[in-house]
């Protein structure tokens, strides 16, 4: 199908873009368009007005800001995937991008658009939560910073309001020696996740410290697995522990039957992937 008619605005700077968001109802931001335009072609979305932010070159950056990697709203998946800063400090993101869409989609799609779209089966919402990223939401005259853990509400739903733009994602550089793991099962690489589990942790004196684990694709939005984190903190890594933790996480998960698998299958995926992720993270820590 074809999208329904809309009014098109193409501001040249952030100030003008925020002004447009503040005025007028039923306005949506057009970033990479790789989620919004399919929804418009299906007529699942029929916004009256689009504010195209592709001219805001001031937001096209991936930069080091002290202990933080800052990623602007116009940084595209492809640029992030191959960024030397990301490869050095946040290799988990580069690995995850192998599983997110395809080259032509990554050439246009943005990280910020991906987070705002908040698909339940999207990988980056889980990764931003374990990296403890802060999301900067700007509107005319003010901005607020929301931790990634508090940003996602449910399917396609976040705390962002109609007059706000996610202008920057701020990701603290992980401490030296942080181990990380990423595991996904999907129909094919590049498709949305049936189940993704991600983790970071450190090992001190043979014990796990600062474990952070998150899951996507199983419940209505990506979330931290805090019970699993509590169960492994200060413990010696080991197969029996990880199997036990994975069993508990699978029991606790609340998957809906969906086109990508029934609830029992999703629980099996959690049970299978969680120990793998933890083993890989432990092997990389040190």
């Amino acid at each position, binding site marked *: 199908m074809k999208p329904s008619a809309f009014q*098109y605005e*193409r501001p040249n700077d952030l100030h003008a873009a925020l002004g447009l968001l503040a005025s007028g109802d039923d306005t949506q931001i057009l970033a990479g368009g790789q989620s919004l335009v399919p929804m418009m072609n299906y007529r699942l979305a029929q916004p009256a007005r689009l504010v195209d932010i592709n001219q805001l070159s001031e937001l096209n950056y991936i930069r080091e800001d002290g202990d933080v990697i800052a990623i602007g709203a116009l940084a595209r998946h492809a640029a992030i995937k191959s960024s030397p800063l990301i490869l050095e400090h946040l290799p988990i993101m580069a690995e995850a991008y192998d599983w997110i869409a395809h*080259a*032509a989609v990554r*050439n246009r799609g943005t990280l910020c658009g991906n987070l705002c779209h908040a698909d339940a089966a999207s990988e980056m919402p889980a990764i931003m939560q374990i990296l403890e990223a802060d999301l900067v939401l700007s509107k005319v005259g003010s901005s607020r910073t929301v931790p990634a853990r508090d940003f996602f509400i449910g399917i396609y739903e976040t705390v962002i309001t109609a007059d706000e733009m996610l202008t920057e994602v701020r990701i603290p550089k992980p401490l030296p020696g942080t181990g990380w793991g990423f595991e996904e099962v999907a129909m094919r690489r590049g498709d949305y996740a049936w189940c993704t589990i991600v983790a970071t942790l450190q090992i001190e004196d043979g014990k796990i410290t600062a474990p952070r684990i998150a899951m996507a694709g199983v419940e209505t939005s990506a979330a931290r697995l805090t019970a699993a984190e509590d169960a492994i903190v200060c413990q010696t890594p080991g197969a029996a522990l990880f199997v036990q933790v994975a069993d508990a996480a699978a029991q606790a998960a609340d998957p809906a039957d969906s086109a990508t698998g029934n609830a029992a299958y999703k629980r099996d995926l959690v049970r299978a992937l969680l120990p793998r992720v933890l083993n890989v993270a432990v092997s990389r820590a040190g």
Partner: protein
Amino acid sequence: MTKVSIEVNVNGRTRHATVPPRMLLSDFIRHELSLPGTHVGCEHGVCGSCNVVVDGRAVRSCLMFAVQAEGAEITTVEGLAQGDDLHPIQQAFWEEHGLQCGFCTPGMLATAQELLAQNPDPSDDEIREAISGNLCRCTGYEFIISAIRSAAAKLRERESETTLQPV
């Protein structure tokens, strides 16, 4: 809704048009510019048959609005051959049987063009990864992979001929 004037360079030619904002770039290329080589399969980003090269990068033309192409340089399949001489990538697809019905081919060529510009000697795995966003219902992909491998060799050869001038 208010129409918008745009200027786009397509296959080396500057084109001016006035388009409604909701017009997809794919429809603009096919219907307004009468370049029907760009194919439309799914119109929601999944099949890759509408891929074209915009400012050096392969993109889904069904997921861009024509108004967004203002000032861009676009190459469609019609821009590849020079007169009667096929582009080396097209020649390789022909020789290696990289197409049957040809529906996916323009998108595959755009994808291959970007890949080979960035990576002149890709491994088979890299070729597979690059075309993972392009669906083909006919060939089983193996012939497409051979075609891209062969195209890479042709382009490298052409490159060395133009850079190594005889003394």
